[in-house]
Each structure stands twice: as structure tokens, then as C-alpha cells.
């Protein structure tokens, strides 16, 4: 079986079990959809990083500043040369998001625990409620790496140039049947549909039942053979707020070795509210012929 393009970014539950006491070189980070899940029990020596409380700016729609990121790492005992291993609930959805933010600020050694929290628990491995604390570090972040982050003007130019996009939302969202729940219009978009030319591959297509990533051959069948992407394509991934699409960004960049993949974190909650930008509706088949 062919290995992934960058196999070093995935570690197994076995590997984590063997390295969880190597606190000098390795920091295990739990990032979950559910804000309380870490507190109910986590991998021994794992710290919590929450996407709302720790990674997003509380006022502006953006990630935390470089200075705040440095403080976050310092407070969790993460140094510039620490290997940070992310895991979490929901097929590592938020673990991939945290991984992406760490890459945005130039952290070199990042990995995902394949199978996430689900696999660790299914294997009957230990959880603890004890919050570890590690000596503070001095952390120096890099300026944001914009080669992995797309902004709206760039997305528009990308569409006009006919370059590929992957929409990782559900088919109903992609077709434009769902824009938001009737009671919460403030959380949705004023228009429904997808960015013209985008192909629809729901993010969870990349994982197996046990939460691990599908083997390379299967991923290639989905993204290369079925959707026609090529590894040297410039690809932009998006979803509703840019979280599910960081999972697909991870798959394309690290498991399949695409060189130029960006996550558009503005995603549908930006595009579907922009005045005058083009939108397509309907089935993938109809729009991709």
C-alpha cells in the first residue's frame, strides 16, 4: 500500500501511548467541537486548546494575533522545536483546524493522532481529568503564512481563472437548498449555493468508520480520479466558517502531497453575504458538465 505523501504528520494511538511522558519534546493537544469534552477526561499530559476561546479573536472575525499565539504556546509549555500532536472529537475535525492555525504561524513540527479521541477510547486507553501544567517557554511565532490562507478577492480571481475549488459542506448546502435555520438568520448567509466551479466532496468522505484517514489509494480515487484534481493544481477549500475545510486542506496537502492548497476561512458565511459575487446553485453533476 502506498504511504501518504508526508507520513510524518500522522502518528498512531500506539505512538502517543509510548510518548505521552516525553513532555520535554512532545506536547499533546486536544481540540474538540465540544468545549467541555476535554474536562470530562483526556489523554494523560494532554493540554486543551479551544478554537473559540484560544484561537479566534474575540472581537474581529480573524485568528488571534501573532503575539497572542506566542502567549498561547508559552502558556502551554510549547517551544519552537516541540512536536505538537493534535487530536480531538468528530474525526479530528477541530484537531485539523488547530493544526492549520499552528502552520499559519509557522510552527514546524505538527502531527495529527490518526483516529482521534474516538479511536483512543475505543481501544480502551486511559483518560484522566488531571490538568497538566508545564514550565512556560519563550515562543517566537512567524508572520502568518498566507500560502495556506485564501481571502475573498483571491478566491474571486481564482474562480475567474477557472482554477479548482472544493466545497466540503453537505450536498444540500452545496446545492443551495439550505441557507440557514429559520430561527437564526444571523448565523447564516443571505444567499445559498456554492462558489462557481467548486466541486462538492463532504469533508467526512476522507475518513473511515473508526475515525482514521482512508488509505492513499482511496483518497486518490475520490479527489483525483472522481473529481479530477491534479497534485500540482492550485486548490482552495472552503465550507461554512472554514473549519471543516481545514480537514480537507490537511488531506490534500499532507496525505496526497498537493503543493498549493489554501483554506478559505471566510467560506460561505462570507461569500454568501458578499454583494455582487457570482454564485451557482444546483447539483454537482449539472454544474460540472
Amino acid at each position, binding site marked *: 500500500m502506498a504511504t501518504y505523501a508526508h507520513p510524518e504528520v500522522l502518528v498512531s494511538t500506539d505512538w502517543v501511548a509510548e510518548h505521552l511522558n516525553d513532555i520535554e519534546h512532545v506536547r499533546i493537544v486536544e481540540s474538540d467541537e*465540544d468545549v467541555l469534552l476535554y*474536562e470530562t477526561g483526556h489523554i494523560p499530559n494532554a493540554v486543551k486548546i479551544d478554537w*473559540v476561546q484560544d484561537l479566534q479573536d474575540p472581537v474581529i472575525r480573524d485568528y488571534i494575533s501573532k503575539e497572542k499565539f506566542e502567549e498561547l504556546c508559552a502558556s502551554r509549555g510549547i517551544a519552537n522545536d516541540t512536536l505538537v500532536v493534535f487530536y480531538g472529537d468528530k474525526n479530528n475535525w477541530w484537531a485539523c483546524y488547530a493544526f492549520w492555525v499552528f502552520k499559519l504561524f509557522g510552527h514546524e513540527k505538527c502531527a495529527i493522532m490518526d483516529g482521534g479521541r474516538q479511536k483512543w477510547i475505543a481501544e480502551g486507553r486511559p483518560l484522566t481529568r488531571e490538568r497538566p501544567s508545564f514550565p512556560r517557554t519563550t515562543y517566537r511565532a512567524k508572520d502568518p503564512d498566507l500560502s495556506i490562507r485564501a481571502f475573498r478577492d483571491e478566491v474571486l480571481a481564482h474562480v475567474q481563472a477557472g482554477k479548482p475549488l472544493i466545497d466540503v459542506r453537505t450536498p444540500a448546502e452545496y446545492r443551495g437548498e439550505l441557507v440557514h435555520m429559520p430561527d437564526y438568520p444571523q448565523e447564516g448567509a443571505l444567499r445559498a449555493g456554492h462558489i462557481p466551479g467548486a466541486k462538492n466532496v463532504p469533508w467526512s468522505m476522507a475518513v473511515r468508520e473508526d475515525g482514521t484517514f482512508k488509505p492513499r489509494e482511496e483518497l486518490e480515487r475520490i479527489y483525483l480520479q472522481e473529481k479530477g484534481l491534479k497534485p500540482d493544481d492550485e486548490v482552495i477549500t472552503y465550507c461554512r*466558517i472554514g473549519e471543516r475545510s481545514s480537514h480537507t486542506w490537511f488531506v490534500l496537502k499532507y496525505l496526497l502531497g498537493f503543493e498549493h492548497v489554501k483554506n478559505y476561512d471566510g467560506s460561505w458565511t462570507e461569500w454568501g453575504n458578499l454583494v455582487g459575487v457570482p454564485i451557482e446553485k444546483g447539483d454537482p453533476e449539472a454544474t460540472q458538465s
Partner: protein
Amino acid sequence: MRKLDALLELFQDLEPAERLELLLDFAERLPPLPPEYVPLRDAGLGMVHECQSPVFFLSEVQDGRVRIYADVPREAPTPRAFTAMLVEAFDGEPPEAVLEAPEELLYRLGIAPLLGMQRLRGLTAIYQKLRREVAEKAGFSANPR
């Protein structure tokens, strides 16, 4: 004083980290689903689709009192905690307790800023389902607005 007011008072006095602690306590307190509701849950009825996890939530009005029947997986402690809080605040109360409760309950409790948009969506949907069902079953207007 209504039970909800006591709950609001309790939450409003806490620091954000303490609110999370208290939520965690609630997550452990959700009463088990009565066996007669298990077939409904297993048939996929009463599910709150906006939640990222399978949340079963059903409210009824029996003899002039609100009854809440719910089941939320342990791997989803936040909706589990919020559901347990709704049980604590409204189960056994008259329907007016639900209908007069603030629409922006999650903000009033001070837990909205801890959660963020994506997470609020599921919890808001649970609360709206409670308000809608109690209004309908108590014979009030189906539209709380």
C-alpha cells in the same frame, strides 16, 4: 421565585472558568431517558438536527406541568449540560415558566461567549424546540415571536 431565576443568579455570579465547571456538573446530572421514550428516540423522532451529536429532546405538558424527556450522548457534554439545566429550570413548572423565560437565555446565563457561533446553533435549537413545543401543547400561539 422561579427555578430559572435561581439558575440565572447562580451563573451570573461566576467567572467564565467557573461557569464551565458548573456546566460540567450539569452534564453529569441529566436524568436517564424513561424506557417508554427509547423507541421514539431509536426511531429518530424528536431529534434536534442542528446539533452536531444525536440529541433527543421532547417536551410535553401533562396536568398543567412541563415535562422534559431527553437523551444526549456523554461524548457531547455541552448539549448534555444545557439540557440538564433546562430540566432543572422547567421540569415540573407551569408552561408560563417556559413562555416567559428570556429568548436570549444562553446570553443571560453568560455561557454564549464561552461557546462561539457554531456551538450556540445547536443549543439555541434545543431551547427553541422547548419553547415551540410547550407553546403548542399548552394551547398558546405556536409562534413565540
